[in-house]
């Protein structure tokens, strides 16, 4: 830990001053809350260090060395394809990230397909034919997913509509005062002035 002060002697406040004989000079006396700032700073520093460590950590990948292809170009394509495919056991991970057995099998399968000359799309299509659209981490645009894809646009339009309405309402001109209102106003003003 980082020490901000040196040679401090912490004295428990209740005892401080009771035993006057044990020489405690003024400069040695440290109040009970001494070191609190120091402790807070230390705590903050450790938080920052933790945060930096977490931020610096690269996401773990589950690809095992024995799965990798010798050809770096093909391996890079395999990684690309794997990131598009959902692991159906863990659901929110791609097969590239997942340690599940099925993910391992699918990674090997993807590499086999690519090696045999399939394009990336063909490989994804191969898995999709067996597991359906759910296996795709990027859902395709269809009737069932129209709300998913169109949702943000819909919310934006609704917001624009609401803002437009608000401004239109504000622009309505205020009708001029009627004769009666003007009379009341001048009466009030006169009263104010006479005070």
């Amino acid at each position, binding site marked *: 830990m980082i020490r901000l002060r040196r040679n401090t002697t912490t004295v428990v406040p209740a005892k401080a001053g009771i035993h006057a004989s044990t020489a405690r000079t003024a400069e040695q006396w440290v109040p009970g809350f001494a070191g609190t700032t120091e402790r807070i700073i230390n705590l903050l520093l450790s938080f920052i260090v933790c945060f930096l460590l977490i931020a610096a950590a690269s996401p773990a990948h589950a690809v095992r060395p024995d799965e990798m292809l010798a050809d770096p170009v093909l391996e890079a394509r395999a990684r690309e394809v794997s990131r598009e495919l959902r692991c159906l056991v863990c659901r929110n991970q791609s097969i590239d990230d997942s340690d599940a*057995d099925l993910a391992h099998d699918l990674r090997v399968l993807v590499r086999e397909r690519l090696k045999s000359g399939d394009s990336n799309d063909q490989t994804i299509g191969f898995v999709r034919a*067996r597991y359906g659209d759910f296996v795709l981490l990027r859902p395709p645009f269809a009737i069932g997913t129209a709300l998913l894809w169109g949702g943000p646009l819909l919310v934006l339009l609704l917001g624009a509509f609401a803002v437009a309405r608000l401004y239109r309402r504000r622009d309505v001109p205020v009708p001029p005062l009627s004769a009666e209102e003007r009379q009341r106003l001048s009466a009030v003003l006169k009263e104010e002035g006479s005070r």
Partner: protein
Amino acid sequence: MIWRRWSFALPVVIFAGLAAGLYYGLQNDNESLPSALIDQPAPTFQLASLPGHEPGFSSADLAGHVSLVNTFASWCTPCRAEHPVLQALAATKRVPIYGIDYKDKEDAAVAWIAALGNPYTRIGADDGRVGIDWGVYGVPETFIVDRQGRIRYKHVGPLTQADLDRKILPLVAKLEK
């Protein structure tokens, strides 16, 4: 203006809608995924046998009759729970049950069947590849295959007697007509 008068109710209406949607989501079983292979021909495969349970199981065995295809494994606890249901069904000889022993150790699978009984007409040992062709993402899963060898239904998770009575057997009867 009606709008002015009732606009105070809008948040309540939105909340009620959201609550209803979430409640529906909670009640609905969205754990099991629909099979992409419904009404598709079953994959072509040839699986080796477990020792003592020759011959193995291949897609040719499914031709000409309605059948159940059940994936299981000795390491799978829900399969153990489902096993008596399959045993009871096999005893009625209502419909042949084919087994795919999924990613299992041979001797463990043989011991499992010796201990619990064998409801299967044929068993094939799969290292996982045939399972992928069937769209299997966990065990147990049970498929109904029709006379033409097309997959007509998929059940994810252990079968119960109620599943059999309500879903599986009525569909088998319908497909046999």
